[in-house]
């Protein structure tokens, strides 16, 4: 029910991101989507990839700081107000959205990756409000 998100720590200097994408490319791992949180000195890259476990292992083998954590992915309608409906749901349930990024976006539909302050509560609140959660395998193979 939760998605495995791949997170990697990297210094904010030339070549570091290239090193990560290089390792993933060589191991035939597709990056479905990503979000990069940066500070002046370092960053944390968060990704949904085709094979999270393998991605973590190959990165670690190359000496990178990589690990997996759980996030929610929610399908949404491609129309005005649908994100607002989601944020209202979370606010009502007293859940903080730590960060979010787009999993997929097309003409007809969209989906978001969500990191909640409490993933179980977030999952329950989304379900109760009638949101459709993205199946992990579907997300990995987008």
């Amino acid at each position, binding site marked *: 029910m939760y998605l495995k*998100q791949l997170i990697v*720590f990297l210094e904010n200097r030339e070549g570091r991101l290239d090193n990560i994408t290089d390792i993933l490319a060589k191991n035939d791992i597709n990056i479905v989507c990503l979000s990069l949180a940066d*500070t002046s000195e370092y960053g*944390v890259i968060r990704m949904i990839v085709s094979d999270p476990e393998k991605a973590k292992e190959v990165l670690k083998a190359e000496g990178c*700081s990589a690990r997996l*954590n759980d996030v929610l992915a929610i399908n949404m309608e491609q129309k005005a107000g649908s994100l607002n409906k989601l944020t209202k749901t979370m606010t009502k349930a007293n859940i903080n959205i730590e960060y979010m990024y787009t999993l997929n976006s097309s003409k007809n539909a969209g989906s978001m990756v969500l990191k909640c302050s409490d993933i179980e509560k977030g999952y329950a609140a989304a379900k109760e409000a009638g949101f459709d959660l993205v199946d992990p395998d579907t997300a990995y193979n987008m």
Partner: protein
Amino acid sequence: MIWNEARECMSRDEMANMQGARLKKLVANVYHNVEFYRKKMQAMGLEPGDIKGIEDITKLPFTTKNDLRDNYPFGLLAVPNSQIVRVHASSGTTGKATVVAYTRRDIEAWQECVARDLVMCGITKEDMIQVAYGYGLFTGGLGLHYGAENLGCMTVPMSTGNTKRLVTMMEDFGVTAIACTPSYLLHIAEVIEEMGVKDRLKLKTAICGAEPWTEKMRLQIEEKLGINAHDIYGLSEVCGPGVACDCGFHKGLHVQEDHFYAEIVNKETLDPMADGEVGELVFTTLTKEGLPLLRYRTKDLTSIDHSPCECGRTTPRISKFKGRSDDMLIIRGVNVFPSQVETALLEIEGVSPHYLMIVDRVNNLDTLEVQVEVDESLFSDEIKEMENLTKKISAALQSALLIAVKVKLVEPRTLERFEGKSKHVIDKRVLVD
């Protein structure tokens, strides 16, 4: 001017006689009153009677900073606590402070030495001096303060911190002398420039110490401020600032050797070395009552010259320091050992012991950056957690080292590893010409 001509210009023979008599008394004192020394001497088959003159000093055991640590806090004192009137402390290698203690007579001897040094720098009782060393457990502030009062100077206890206020008072009061670390003085010089008050100042002398600095830096200070700058040396274990100081001829620092007997020894074999040869500086505190030390190894590398100085003093001169025989760093006047960083990091859960200290001098102030490798157990996908981690590491290091530390998180395996010995320090400051 010479503050105490009888002592500072004594003939070498008279000095040796006086030192011999003081050494005999000192050895008998520590043998009877300090268990640590009694045991050491007994193990060497030495009795107080074996020391007949200053030349016998080489028979005596050495003392190290570790010995002070092992006997923390008051194990090496030769008098009961009731006779101690002051305590100072400096940071030790493993987080525990090195504690030193003074009787009233120790304080008097210390302020006598500082007064001699101030006069050596051309300061008189007519001068007004700002003491801009830290006041507190650090010996710098109070050491210079009591010496300046002893000389009779109008003494302004500035301590460190608000540089603009310092400069304002320097102008308003008509301050003529300042005591602080050389790097702080260069910073003060910049603030003076910014405030545009240089022409209105009466400053003519600076007495700087507590950190290594080059002759080039001394000349730079003199030129920038249009003053005379002098180098004062000391270490808390032996007393504090005032153990040695350079006169107007700047040909080495005169050691107050009626109180502190200086030897230079080979840092490996510990054999005595001749004048001019570079080795480790060793002090025996000939007159101290509270914490008398036999042959204390300073780990500072230098050479000594016993020939009389052009200034008329006969006290021997040590040259500017050539480095240290251990890994201690002096950052903003504070002793820092890499092992302190390691210990502090290991106490934070999940932090790897792989670190690199980068010491630099930015705008004439020492800076310390500690790079810490981040492994997968430590980092978070949330920046706020990462910022908390940085703050936590920084706070832990700051409380261990007593100086501000900038923490930088780096990727695993980015810090260099060497076989057997890892490189933990990059010192970008130019400290030796």
